[in-house]
């Protein structure tokens, strides 16, 4: 019988990144929605800023790097 090893399922990056390193940002977002003074509309606006920057940054990098790849094709 194969012994179950939790580390084969829960890899280091899974808990390091999403469990530990993400904590400051989770705290900030919780603070926006639960801290005082608060306005859900403004908290949602801040969250929109955050998400928009992530999306625009990586979509931009994705398109830019693919374009560079087309302009400078790999040498044969």
């Amino acid at each position, binding site marked *: 019988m194969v012994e179950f090893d939790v580390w084969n399922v829960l*890899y*280091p*990056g*899974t808990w*390091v*990144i999403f469990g*530990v*390193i*993400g*904590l*400051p*940002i989770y*705290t*900030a977002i919780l*603070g*926006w929605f639960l*801290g*005082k*003074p*608060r*306005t859900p509309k*403004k*908290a949602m*606006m*801040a969250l929109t*800023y*955050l998400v928009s*920057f*992530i999306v625009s*940054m*990586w979509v931009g*990098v*994705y398109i*830019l*790097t*693919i374009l*560079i*790849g087309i*302009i*400078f094709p*790999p*040498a044969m």
Partner: protein
Amino acid sequence: MSSKTPSADDIVRPMQSTQRWYYIVFGIASLLALGWFGLWSIQLQRGLAVTNLADWGSAGGVTWGLYIGAFIWWVGIAHGGIILSAAVRLFGMKRYLPVARLAELLTIGALSMAGFYIMIHLGRPDRMAWSVIQAYPVTVHQSPLVWDVTVITMYMVMTLTYLGLTVRYDINRLRDDLPSYLEPVYKMATLGYSEKEDEVIERIVWWLALGVIVMAPLLLHGGVIPWLFALLPSMPGWQGAIQGPQFLTIALTSAIAGVIILALVLRRAYDWYHILTDDIIRGLTLWLGLFSLLFIWLQLQQVITGVYAAPLDQRAFAHAKIANPYYQFAIGVVLIALAYIFAQAVKPHVFSVRRSLAASFMVLAGTLTEKVLFVFEGLEYPTFDMYYNVPGHYFPSPIEIGSLVGTIALCTLFFLVILKVIPVVELHAIEELRGEGHAPAEGDD
């Protein structure tokens, strides 16, 4: 020191008039940046063969060199910014409010250059799309390189959000004095703004500052970035828990040095002697001294534990490191800067802004040199040195060195453009200096 009273007119001046020096610096920076793009295009056509990076061991080279060293250096500079700004908000360090936004912008400029270095170092930038973005759901679970990309992204977007939220107050109040051709930008940046939001936004920013002040020093530059190296057991120069604090001291020293340089350049350019005062520069110089001392202390820890009865692999690395003239240069310039900072702390008349400027440049040169050496010497002295007799020694190629000039020019261009778009000194700072006391930290202490 000037006796002028700071006013809102002071901070909008960069957007209202353009002096000759601006065009000259813009022209030089553009030429240097274009020169770098020319060099980079050679690398894009011919591959990383144009660098002096080579296959580790068998080709007598190292696979990581100046590009990765400079990447760490830029991330380090990026630290100062937002941490300084966050400290102003969290700990009420109002004295530094006039440099807070400059520092935030330094974070954005420097972090962009760090990200650019990742792209440069990949050789083919489209690997960013395939190996980083598309493979992310798989690689994030095991690859420290991908953790690094993740945390840098978080840091960048937190800084951008921070800036995006704080700038709403300034734009709304200064709208009439800002350039009309940027009206659509300002309209978008202040979408839904009302004066009633100020208190809530201030609190939102406070929470963001709290997140940044934990994430940036402890989990990014003192965490994920040193883990890129410290988790590799076969490289004695890289391994060990000390790398976290050591990297952090480099980040903090180079960041404070960057803020000092930026503040001094801008106060001269825009006659902001009454805003970016000697008092602020003196305070930043003392912080530079404290962090430089910690940097030297951690270097001492590594040298002593490396040369005295250390395991053979660590000893070989430590001896090579201290014998390297570039390492001696790096430590030497930081020690000289430290001697000045100590002297001006003991005898205040020794202080001068020019000396602080020189100390800042020395610290930046020292930390860059140390970091590049750390990267490639770590690879050159592995535990199992089976390629010992393979000839070759790494020294950056002109294209690699050109990347440094290019990224510094690009960062300069970023500042020249931003000077024309938003006030680089917060309106809160002016209000505070005028005694109108709308300092953000007060309600949050």
